[in-house]
């Protein structure tokens, strides 16, 4: 990541400054907010968004999109809640292990559809989104699993505090760090980036583009599975409509963070900042007394502005591509 800071600092720093400015403005207007508690609460609120955005950005890097993440959260969350409900004596550890595995399986289904059956990612995950949501209803028979039906250790783990942060926050920070390192230092991570940057060139370089997409979907699914547990435990309830529509916020956070929908471009740091930006926005707007509907509109506006910025950054890059002395100097 040191590598990128050498040549392309502006996007992430700009967003970081903007997020910090909003936070500072919020604290200046409401001095009672100026406490460490505000910051840790903010991180707690955005932790699940951060984990999901790390997975989503990996898929976006390969020129794909994963619309099924929120449905994956709901389905894994429901399965884990049911397991805990029926076998509370087994404790939280098996649940913690099963969550990413189950999520990865659901992600692998997306991956196989895209890689082997060549279904476009948006269509494949639109289909699995509906299937996974439907399965939540089938499994629970439409019933809710409430906090009194889950064991205490299951519910308390995400909220447990360690060195000033909750386990939930630590998982988000650790997950983001691991994803950043993985994308930067692992062969698979590099292949994912290359395959989305230029699939033709990747083919010639001996990289299996479809397999890279598959890997991205599996990673996205595993993180969604982990979030399935975190969501259900944090809010103390599992039902069919858990995280309904949340996939759009996840994609929005990535795009605001400078991850390109066209693949190949984007950093974990950017996605993280995109999440924090949305988190601050969602915390600040209620303080201003805006109705929830206005909050949606303001989030949407932020997203649109981010997309325009990205498009302009990309087209200016293309312009220099044409202007370079290509065929003119071929004499």
């Amino acid at each position, binding site marked *: 990541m040191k*590598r990128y800071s*050498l*040549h*392309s600092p502006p996007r992430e720093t700009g967003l970081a400054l903007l997020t910090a400015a909003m936070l500072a403005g919020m604290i200046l207007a409401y001095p009672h907010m100026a406490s460490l508690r505000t910051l840790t609460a903010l991180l707690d609120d955005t932790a699940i968004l951060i984990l999901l955005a790390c997975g989503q950005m990996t898929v976006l890097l390969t020129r794909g999109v994963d619309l099924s993440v929120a449905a994956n959260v709901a389905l894994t969350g429901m399965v884990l809640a049911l397991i805990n409900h029926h076998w509370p004596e087994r404790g939280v550890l098996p649940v913690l292990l099963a969550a990413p595995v189950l999520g990865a399986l659901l992600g692998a289904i997306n991956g196989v559809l895209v890689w082997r059956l060549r279904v476009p990612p948006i269509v494949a995950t639109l289909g699995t989104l509906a299937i996974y949501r439907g399965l939540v209803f089938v499994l629970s028979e439409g019933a809710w699993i409430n906090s009194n039906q889950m064991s205490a250790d299951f519910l308390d783990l995400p909220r447990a505090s360690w060195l000033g942060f909750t386990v939930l926050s630590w998982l988000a920070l650790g997950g983001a760090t691991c994803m950043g390192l993985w994308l*930067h*230092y*692992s*062969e698979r991570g*590099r292949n994912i*980036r*290359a395959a989305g*940057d*230029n699939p*033709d*060139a*990747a*083919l*010639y*370089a*001996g*990289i299996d583009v479809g397999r890279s997409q598959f890997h991205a979907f599996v990673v996205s699914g595993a993180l969604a599975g982990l979030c399935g547990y975190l969501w259900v435990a944090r809010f103390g309830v599992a039902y069919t409509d858990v995280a309904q529509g949340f996939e759009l916020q996840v994609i929005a956070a990535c795009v605001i963070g400078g991850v390109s929908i066209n693949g*190949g*471009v984007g950093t974990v740091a950017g996605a993280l900042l995109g999440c924090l930006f949305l988190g601050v926005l969602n915390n600040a707007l209620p303080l201003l007394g805006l109705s929830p509907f206005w909050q949606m509109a303001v989030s949407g506006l932020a997203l649109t502005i981010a997309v325009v910025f990205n498009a302009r950054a990309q087209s200016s*890059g293309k312009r*220099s*591509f044409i202007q*370079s*002395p*290509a*065929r*003119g*100097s*071929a*004499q």
Partner: protein
Amino acid sequence: MNKPLSQSNQPLLTLSSVRKQFGGVRALEDANLELHAGSVTALLGENGAGKSTLVKILTGVLQPDGGEIRINGSSVRIESPRAALQLGISAIHQESVVFGALSVAENICINARPRRRTPLGPLLVDWTEMRRRARILLSELEIDLDPDQPVSELTIAQKHLVQIARALNGAHRIVIMDEPTAALSRRETEDLFRIARRLQNQGSALLFIGHKFDEIFALSNRYAVFRDGSTIAQGLLRDTTQERLIADMVGRIVEQRFPAPNPHLGSELLRVEALSQTPFFRDVSFSVRRGEILGFYGLVGAGRSELMQALFGLQAAQEGKVFLDGDAVDIRSPEAAIHNGLALVPEDRQHQGAILDLAITDNISLPNLHRLGCRGFIRRRRERSATQPLMQYLQIKAAGQHQRVRELSGGNQQKVVLAKWLATRPRLLILDEPTKGIDIGAKVAVYQLIRELADQGIAIILVSSELPEVLGLSNRVAVMRHGRVRALFEYGQAQPEQVMRAATGAGEYA
């Protein structure tokens, strides 16, 4: 020419009777090729002779339908680009295939990223080693680039150099150079040749694909000529001449029968004066009369397609004037071009010409909807009755008007595109590679049609890379190279060799 090298008799790589077919089109019919260690083999052939397909087979992107590939005498299958790299076959491609968002170092090492040891095995990418390796390769090639720079910030020529460095990272017994000099300046070309000679001295076998004879003779010592997917000749370059090579490339006789052009032409319809659009074409002037067929010949990248797109208003020309029937016109959009009676049948039929998933009728009526409409709604019956006679006239073979264009053969797809533009009743019809990739029977039908349209008084511009076609059909042939019209031949005056020479610039260097 190079000094003769000592070579073993056994070739490093041998291709025998390799075949490849795409749908109904035979790209390679009988490809034979020998590459020797320590020698540079030039691969020559017209556009469409099968050179690109051959490169794709050697690099594992395509699988041959038949024939045999041997390396060091033993038969091999190159089942993927990765397998090709493992066999030591690397390629420098015509267009630069690089990763814009990745650094110069990673672009160079993308085939084989160095790993760092961890307790669990060599799992991590070793960025320090990657930079070091890139720096060594770049300095060996005397290329001054920062390994950490993102490739998107480089010029096209620099991107190409990065690609060359990549081809030399790792084993490279066989190096394929597919028109590597097209994007390079004179100095960069000399650098490339220096690199090529060093590889040659190190014992690599090089395959050099190019169109410029001065470069071919400066670099290579062996040659192979392809025509229509088959190897016509191969051997040592010192045993042949430029004239022999050109004759082999174009074929000695014009093989198809063409209806002779009409000598009685109408008044001048189009006049173009000093049209320029850097970097594609410069200072182009010509005129076309009613009933005339004006051919445009040149190699890929000579600027012909760009010139036609400028005439049709797709890309505004920067300088120059265009007159229609003596009146100056300024055509800035395809809509304006259609309004002025122009029609363009584009080169890329599947992407620019036809909408494959629409019915034949819908395709044909697309540019004519204003004539078929009634207060914004399309009259289906009028649409059908307008299409039917055209389908009959062009003898489009289809199950019916509502068949999707995707389901038709290449020749019939092309006829649908032609019908679409004929329905606009154009005064000037521009045809860009109208017979590309269609079988011989359909070609003859298209030739007949072009001739008939000219006889009806339509002015026709025929852009084609097939020499017999351009020479057989056109009243006059303009030859373009590097964005300029280099020569203009009258019907019957041009010999294929002369035209080829004007297109390649051969002879200017001899």
